């Protein structure tokens, strides 16, 4: 039996208030008033699809060992690198390299489901496969996309042991129906008329594909208990369900009111949402539309209730901070030529040879543990840091990203350049041993305190814009 064995999700903490966006733009685009409701997730300045996918993957692997993963498929339409294996960065951050195949899947909003199909098939022979999907799409100022999109990620571990949602079947069609596109020379999507997309696209492509999928699974529409189908047109999923005999009650909420559409990740984000409350015997259909359609059907098993707790979508959704400052959203997305000052001018060139030598330290937050005195330390070095030990060549690699840690001292620095001033940083002490001066993220005044418990999170440290946007990643501390 092949299927999903674990799930995880990630949603940035900030939630952009749509009314605030509309209020800023209504002079120009009064027609957006109908969308000025609720909020959308908004990546912090130091988050992109890789960092969000890493967090969703860590959430997913709460119950499983990263080193058992044999394949990573990373789906996105906003991979930070065009040529550099984005999925490989996730692997390094999870401290898996050996016996690992890493693959990026993109180019369509159904990249998430395509990755999931590939992942399920790859894991049939007993090779656990991690499927991560994340998107952080740009949208033009005063566009409907700006209000509709959200940033987020999901991760699913596929395998054959302790399957919580067994794959019943899948079906795909591919046709070059261009409802929207994003060319190589643009940061933004360009879309055609919605009515045409609905009548000539969804209505003519999706129902026959669903029917074929149901037939292959020997099911009828009424068997489906959860119907997942992302769409920027909220009526469309209901319409499609109706056309194939799936009950309206089965159609899952699009999460538009609180999260927004997370692009290539959204079908999987909605699947995680559904799995969180699913019961054994539920039959979940996942449909993703994008130059064709992918359809997957799962049946939830009794193993689902045995899956250890994790944050999941609901947990990350509950960690929320409302953001009413639309200017901040624009600045974070480099949509505003803000005066960063001379302190932002320092060259951010990365020595790739150093990054390679120290990749476990920088991407994996791997420190050392002294074999002689047992001291955990970061970074790992050739001489133990313990003043009463100083043993040489005594340290084994020791992964520290998941260790409990807290604030020893900190400051809010108004002088240092930060895209979100003041810059918070401080000495992070790991309960097991080891410490280092770390940047903080997702932090507010009165939230960070001496002794406060923190959690290490994988983030962008710098963006080398002089060299085409080489993102430097490292770990930061965030309040628990």
């Amino acid at each position: 039996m092949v299927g999903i064995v674990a799930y995880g999700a990630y949603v940035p903490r900030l939630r952009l208030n749509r009314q605030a966006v509309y209020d800023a733009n209504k002079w120009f685009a009064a027609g957006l008033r109908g969308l000025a409701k609720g909020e959308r997730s908004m990546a912090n300045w130091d988050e992109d699809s890789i960092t969000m996918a890493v967090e969703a993957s860590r959430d997913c692997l709460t119950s499983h060992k990263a080193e058992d993963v044999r394949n990573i498929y990373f789906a996105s339409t906003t991979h930070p690198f065009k040529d550099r294996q984005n999925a490989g960065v996730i692997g390094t951050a999870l401290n898996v390299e050996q016996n690992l195949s890493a693959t990026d899947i993109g180019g369509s909003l159904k990249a998430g489901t395509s990755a999931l199909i590939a992942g399920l098939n790859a894991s049939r022979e007993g090779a656990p496969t991690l499927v991560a999907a994340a998107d952080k799409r740009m949208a033009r100022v005063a566009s409907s996309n700006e209000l509709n999109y959200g940033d987020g990620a999901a991760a699913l571990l596929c395998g054959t042991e302790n399957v919580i949602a067994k794959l019943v079947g899948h079906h795909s069609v591919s046709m070059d129906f261009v409802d929207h596109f994003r060319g190589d020379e643009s940061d933004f999507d360009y879309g055609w008329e919605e009515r045409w997309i609905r009548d000539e696209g969804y209505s003519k492509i999706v129902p026959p594909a669903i029917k074929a999928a149901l037939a292959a699974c020997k099911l009828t529409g009424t068997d489906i208990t959860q119907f997942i189908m992302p769409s920027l047109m909220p009526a469309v999923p209901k319409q499609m369900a109706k056309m194939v005999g799936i009950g309206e009650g089965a159609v899952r909420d699009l999460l538009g009111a609180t999260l927004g559409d997370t692009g290539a990740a959204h079908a999987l984000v909605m699947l995680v949402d559904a799995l969180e409350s699913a019961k054994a015997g539920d039959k979940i259909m996942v449909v993703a539309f994008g130059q064709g359609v992918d359809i997957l059907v799962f049946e939830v098993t009794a193993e689902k209730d045995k899956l250890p707790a994790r944050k999941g979508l609901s947990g990350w959704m509950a960690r929320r901070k409302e953001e009413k400052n639309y200017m901040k959203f624009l600045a974070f997305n480099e949509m505003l030529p803000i005066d960063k000052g001379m302190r932002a001018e320092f060259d951010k060139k990365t020595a790739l040879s150093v990054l390679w030598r120290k990749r476990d330290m920088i991407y994996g937050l791997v420190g050392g543990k002294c074999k002689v005195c047992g001291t955990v330390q970061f970074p790992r070095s050739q001489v133990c840091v313990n003043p009463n030990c100083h043993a040489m060549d005594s340290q084994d690699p020791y992964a520290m990203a998941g260790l409990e840690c807290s604030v020893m001292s900190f400051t809010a620095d108004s002088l240092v350049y930060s895209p979100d001033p003041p810059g918070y940083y401080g000495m992070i002490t790991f309960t097991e041993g080891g410490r280092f001066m770390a940047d903080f993220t997702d932090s507010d005044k009165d939230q960070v305190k001496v002794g406060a418990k923190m959690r290490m999170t994988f983030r962008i440290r710098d963006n080398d814009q002089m060299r085409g946007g080489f993102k430097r990643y490292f770990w930061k501390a965030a309040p628990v």
Partner: protein
Amino acid sequence: MARGIKDKVAILGMGCSKFGERWDSGAEELMLEAYKECLKDAGIDQNQLQAAWFSTAIDEVHVGKSGIPLSTTLRLPNIPVTHVENMCASGTEAFRGACYAVASGAADFALALGVEKLKDTGYGGLPGGRGGPLQVLWNASGTAPGNFAQLATAYMTAHGVSGEDLKKAIGHVSWKSHQNGAKNPKAHLQKAVEMETILNAPMIASPLGLFDCCGVSDGAAAAIVTTPEIAKALGKKDIVSVKALQLSVSNGSESGHNSWDGSYFHTTRIASKRAYEEAGIKSPRDEVSMFEVHDCFSVTELVTMEDLHISETGKGWKDVLDGFYDADGKIPCQIDGGLKCFGHPIGASGLRMLYEMYLQLQGKAGPRQLKDPRIGMTHNLGGAPRENISSVAIVGRYE
């Protein structure tokens, strides 16, 4: 412990430029300004110099590397010139090099000169963006105020000092230095500041406000050293000799091992102990007449006075509030105005501090002159509380 260099080296002459935003001068002009005064004070000919040590810390924004800038600017007689950099301890390092040359007998006359020209960067604060290719991948993106602000939070936590009490104490540190600096024509800032202004100043890195931070300025200072015997032979009176020079450098235990609580300078405790031993000082609180310590931030000075074993650990803030370190207190600290009023041209600061000690010990400090000082101690702290170089120098009357 080794025998040390107590009384083996005498300061023959010193010079110090006017500190400040010296838009009129480059590093070269500042060097000459300090050097001319120094050479005249020493009363020797330039050709008698046999070795020189030259300190700068952020040379990439002014003179660049090597000993050549000193040699060419001064047209030195092709003597050895060693360029030293050890962050904020650089000036003291130059002095140490010159003193060791004389103490060893390798040179009869050695020059130490430190300079920093920081005000050609286009912005306030210290130039940033330094660090090797690994450091920039993981070191927190901090500034000096942010790093030293954490000393304040850790100090409060370790000793149960309230934010209000600490703010008052570090405010007094700055208030006292401004009172002193107002009497010093070479200081960058020469105005006394009201306590209320200090306490209500804008925050730079909490809990440090504007007046808790020293300024950034340009300046240079220099010393020519020789042996006490040669100084005497040259007819010098009121000879000032070197009693101790010590340095302690972090080895990573504070920044990487959980035994340090962030509330003190591990290295300063070590360096000062070694210095007292070298100088033969048994009870520093009774024997040291005055201090110039590294008040890059007000809280640094407060904590340093504990780590120099003058105030009891955790009680330094009370001594400060009692006026113990004021100009009319038991042991005046920063009698020249400190980094607070001079700013911190990094390579020059250590020598600038010694300059004030030298003037005071000779009774030449004008309106700032203390009554009968015998022992003066300077201290520099380079780096951050978690990883630093602490340098200590003790000078006194040669008796």
